[in-house]
């Protein structure tokens, strides 16, 4: 199964409470995805020469202070490390490639979940309520977000297999469904020099879109190619710096429902997750059509 949620807040006054608005959405999808949950949060950008690196340690005992000291000592550059349970966000103005190879060499046990200027990613195993509590989702502030609740069907239950997945800076994707040609896609993409971190089918979809965009496609063209090549069932919800985008497979196998309101756009697998939103009665509620691309800009 799995549940997806997305929220883009149009009313600037409501952006400080985006976490609070989202929390019942994510928890509302617990029955669809009780084993892991994840969230990509888009907030205030860091300055143009800086990047944020979302890191996952797997243990709350991890010594993040030491990592910060090691980073600054080895690379002679300032870094800010903000830990949150099993995660930390490292902010620095060093090149992403250098940071990645340093992490690989000195902290190979860490997972690098995302790189960007606006986006932080948190994902972990547990019920949506547990994961939300662990990372204090309720108090998150920002403009838009993409969330996921997972019921694993085709690969292991680990934080790395949880969604969202990323494909490039400030770009993420969550998936409800399953792909039948994930292995052949992976073989094809690895031949093109695209690196994989897991054997997850969603990662294959994510890397496919990453490859198409590397080849010069914009998101829309990449998704049109995706309709040809992705074989299986999917509702895909994507987040970028300033937009959310949604597509459903040609057979409409996996659900989605959208509420468009003057103050926000909310997306979920089921209406249950939208029912609590303020003034939902006056939102335009509709079901997206298969094979159509829906995009909402900030």
């Amino acid at each position, binding site marked *: 199964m799995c549940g997806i949620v997305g929220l883009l807040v149009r009313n600037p006054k409501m952006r400080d409470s985006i976490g609070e608005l989202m929390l019942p959405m994510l928890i509302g999808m617990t029955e669809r995805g009780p084993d892991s949950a994840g969230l990509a949060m888009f907030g205030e950008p860091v300055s143009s020469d800086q990047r944020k690196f979302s890191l996952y340690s797997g243990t709350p005992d991890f010594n993040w202070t030491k990592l910060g000291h090691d980073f600054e000592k080895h690379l002679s550059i300032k870094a800010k490390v903000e830990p949150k349970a099993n995660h930390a966000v490292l902010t620095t103005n060093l090149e992403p490639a250098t940071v990645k190879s340093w992490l690989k060499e000195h902290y190979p046990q860490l997972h690098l979940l995302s790189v960007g200027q606006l986006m932080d990613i948190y994902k972990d195993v547990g019920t949506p309520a547990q994961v939300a509590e662990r990372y204090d989702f309720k108090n998150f502030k920002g403009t838009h977000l993409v969330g996921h609740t997972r019921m694993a069907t085709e690969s292991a239950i680990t934080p790395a297999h949880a969604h969202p997945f990323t494909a490039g800076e400030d770009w993420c994707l969550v998936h409800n469904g399953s792909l039948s040609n994930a292995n052949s896609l992976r073989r094809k993409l690895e031949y093109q020099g695209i690196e994989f971190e897991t054997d997850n089918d969603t990662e294959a979809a994510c890397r496919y879109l990453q490859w198409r965009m590397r080849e010069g496609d914009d998101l829309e063209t990449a998704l049109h190619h995706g309709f040809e090549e992705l074989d299986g069932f999917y509702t895909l919800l994507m987040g970028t710096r300033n937009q959310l985008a949604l597509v459903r497979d*040609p*057979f*409409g196998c996996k*659900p989605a429902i959208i509420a468009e309101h003057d103050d926000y756009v909310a997306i979920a697998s*089921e*209406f*249950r*997750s*939208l*029912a*609590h939103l303020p003034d939902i009665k006056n939102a335009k*509620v*509709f*079901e997206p*059509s*298969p094979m159509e691309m829906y995009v909402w800009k900030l």
Partner: protein
Amino acid sequence: METLKFDLDTKPLREVNQFLHGDASSLNGKVIVIENPNGAHNIAVGLKAELDITIKGHAGYYAAGMNQIAKVTIEGSAGSGVAENMMSGVVHVKGFASNAAAATANGGLLIIDGDAGLRTAIALKGADVVVGGSVGSFSAFMAQAGNFVILGDAGEGLGDSIYEAKIFVRGKVKSLGADCEKKTTSAEDRQILADLLVKAGHANVNPDSFQQYGSARTLYHFHVDNAGAY
């Protein structure tokens, strides 16, 4: 007439459904209002009494599934499988309906004022379905009996492998499924259509503005060209 109100914000749906499954003699004639449905699944499933139920908002999956005798009105939208396997009665969705509305429904009438999703009336077994808007792809797949009226358009593969159900479409059909073809509407079928339009609140719509579709019946019988396979 006695009206009973249930608020799903405060009363568990299971208790409401258990009440609705009580002895028919104590339920017949009751008017029930269900407030704050908030997309919950399985609201008012398995009814078998003369109840008049109004759901004040959006319903989740399988609303009014397996319905017998009762009249259920959903004032918002309905999730997948509304009126699935309905036997009799009336289910009226005032908003849109998701996939597989009226799947395998044996009898009764499903009215959807808005659009309906993919696979509407799939394996229909005798119920009547009237959709005010358009329907998604693969609707009326293997539909065996019953009448399916679409005031808007139909998606791809309409009536694929259809048996004896009758489809009436006022708008465009993106494509027909295997063994589904245009039919000439007989006086008898025109009357069925006209009656359904009135029952579904579309009395002002001209029955002559519909194209009828049905089975070409080429998949029914053994084809002699296949004899060599044995």
